[in-house]
């Protein structure tokens, strides 16, 4: 059986709550079967609304959503067969863990012994065997989270939606849960639509990430592409760290462009600029700028060290380069030979391919 690449399809979906403002604008998104896709964006960007429309708790104002090629706008939530993990887990507080997990099976009128088997399997999947008779209130946050995941998966839904499920957990637990959810996804091959505002979470877990802003998908691509090759300044800013220069294109040729800044000029990779005179934001990742490299690159400048912050595995150095005093460098701890001291002036270089000339801010 070949995988359906349009298993879930948002087709020109608009959503407005008050008839004045569109929270989702002309959304077109295809999710293939078995994929782990993350909707990432700041709060108010429309990502949760999209999830709610898919789950059936909100109706699209315009357009249609298809699940396995069937339009689902008129199907009530309980008939969609979509599992969902809620932000605050939404475990039923008056039911035991077993009863919580058995709920979706009971309403589907599955036989008792079959239910027992499925609940056992789901609990062992999230390594909570033996917790059947606990009440949700007696579980820790992480355990409740696992129960919520198990409950969303226990009835073998085709799609599972997760709405910032790890938001309430502490950092360590969040990281281990990220791996756990990823492994569960890999082992059972269910389609997961995951919503988060945490880019780290999105990068580690997803096959593809849809970056939302202002009701629109800004970029939809794999995590590495998203990080290495952001298509606009919002994505570059939102994902990872970023050094920016504002300027104007003074020359564009051979897949390279020259950008004139207030002080000096840099060579960049033209992404969102077409012609001479275009305003642009040039974006460079901190780790792509090197201190005094052996091989000369096509951008070489001097910078004054303004601040040195120790981070354990690396040191962050704030420089003043070309009039930008917020230029951040990441220096690995192993490079002890470098003379990094406050006030020193050092040579830095980067490749023009890593300096992406994007749309102006």
């Amino acid at each position, binding site marked *: 059986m070949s995988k359906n690449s349009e298993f879930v399809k948002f087709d020109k979906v608009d959503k407005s709550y008050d008839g004045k403002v569109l929270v989702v604008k002309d959304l077109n998104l295809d999710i293939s079967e078995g994929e782990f896709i993350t909707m990432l964006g700041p709060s108010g960007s429309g990502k949760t609304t999209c999830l709610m429309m898919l*789950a059936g708790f909100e109706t699209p104002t315009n357009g249609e959503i298809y699940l396995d090629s069937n339009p689902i706008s008129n199907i009530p939530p*309980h008939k969609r067969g979509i599992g*969902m993990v809620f*932000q*605050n887990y*939404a475990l*039923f507080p*008056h039911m035991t863990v077993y009863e919580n997990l058995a709920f*979706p099976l009971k*309403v589907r009128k599955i036989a008792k012994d079959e239910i027992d088997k499925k609940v056992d399997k789901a609990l062992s999947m999230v390594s909570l065997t033996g917790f059947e008779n606990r009440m949700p209130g007696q579980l820790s946050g992480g355990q409740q989270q696992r129960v919520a995941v198990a409950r969303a998966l226990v009835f073998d839904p085709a799609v599972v939606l997760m709405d910032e499920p790890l938001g309430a957990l502490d950092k360590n637990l969040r990281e281990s849960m990220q791996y756990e959810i990823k492994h569960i996804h890999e082992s059972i091959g269910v389609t997961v639509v995951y919503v988060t505002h945490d880019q780290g979470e999105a990068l580690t877990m997803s096959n593809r990430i849809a970056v939302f802003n202002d009701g629109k998908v800004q970029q939809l691509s794999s995590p590495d592409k998203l990080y290495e090759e952001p298509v606009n300044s919002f994505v570059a800013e939102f994902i990872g760290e970023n050094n920016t220069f504002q300027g104007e294109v003074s020359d564009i040729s051979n897949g390279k462009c020259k950008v004139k800044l207030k002080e000096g000029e840099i060579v960049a990779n033209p992404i969102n600029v077409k012609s001479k005179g275009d305003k642009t934001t040039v974006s460079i990742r901190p780790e792509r700028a090197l201190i005094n490299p052996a091989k000369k690159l096509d951008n070489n400048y001097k910078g004054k060290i303004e601040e040195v912050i120790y981070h354990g595995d690396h040191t962050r150095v704030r420089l003043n380069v070309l009039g930008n005093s917020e230029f951040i460098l990441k220096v690995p701890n192993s490079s002890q030979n470098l003379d990094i001291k406050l006030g020193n002036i050092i040579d830095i270089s980067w490749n023009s391919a890593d300096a992406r000339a994007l749309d102006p801010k």
Partner: protein
Amino acid sequence: MSSETNKILTTDGIPLEESLKKAEKKNKIKAFLLVAPLLLFLIITYVFPIGDMLFRSVDDRMVTNMLPKTFKAMEKWDGKELPDEKVFEAFYFDYKKLVEEKTFGKLATQLNYEKNGFKSILKKLKRKMKKFEEGNYKEQIMGVHKRWANVEYWRALKRRTPAYTYSKYLKGVDMYENEDGKIVQVPEDRRVHKILWVRTIEVAFFVTVLCFLMAYPIAHLLATLPMKYSNLLMICVLLPFWTSLLVRTASWMILLQQQGIVNDFFVWIGLVSDDNRPEMMYNKTGTYVAMTQILLPFMVLPLYSVMKTISPSLMRAGKSLGGTPFVAFWKVYFPLTIPGIGAGCLLVFILAIGYYITPALVGGASGTLISNQIAYHMKSTLDWSFASAMGLMLLTGVLVIYWIYNKLVGVDNIKLG
């Protein structure tokens, strides 16, 4: 060994427990002083009156103290035939003293509760007594009225000998201790209290059910509507609550009377004919309608406060897991509201069971409740001990309901806010 190791010492060598007590002492005193005014207030205005009521309902010392000689002389009387001269003599002197002190009226009232007809023969005795000669009081008293020669009256008198009695409680359930000392029911045509008890419980029960049926959707709406609408609705629920009880009851009288607005409306839409307007007041219907409306907020508020805490995502979870809206409501939402239902029902039932003013005004003869009877004995017959006895029976009833509720649902599951 174990006791040595169990005792943890502070660095100063004082046992930890002692040190903790010392440190907490100041806070404890402070806490006690804070509650002291309320405690005092409760003792003066609640514990003391209830104690007094309990005492009053069984206290019968008044009669005992009024006729000390008579009761002493009666000790040896077996109650089968008329008592002998000694009893009559003692009664004559006791009564004479009461006449001189002008307190004989109270005795007459008390003895008339015990047996009808006592009042008039005591009055007659008082008039004739002035001409009594010394000696042979039995003959002289019996000569005043033929009832004085009736052994029943003397038995009734003897029954009032003990200083404490439970006869008021028996009377409250239409029973009495007859001449042979057996507890029997009063004749069927005089069983008024039993009807009132049954009616009180019935009205309280149905008012609770009606309140619940109406309050549940309102409370749900209140808890789920956006703030600006829910505030308005909340005011609508609370507005009657802020209005005087008397005003609300009076407005129901205006609405429900035969020439009232509701009847006018029924006639106008052709539901009833003009000359056949239904009676909706001065009967149980009036009591039901007015009490339900008045007690509704007491059901809405606890329900609302519980529903407010139920996350809307729970219902969503129920639906997304495949439950129809009804299943999600019945299996998820409803069980979570049970603490509110319990609190609301208990509150409304207990308030309804002792409700006084509304049934008094709109209840008529067939809509009055036990509390109206208590008030009647407080104000009209002045039989305070009987009123106290019935009041305590009502209180006991409420406590029993509370106990049953605790057994069924658990008091921990009550949530008022």
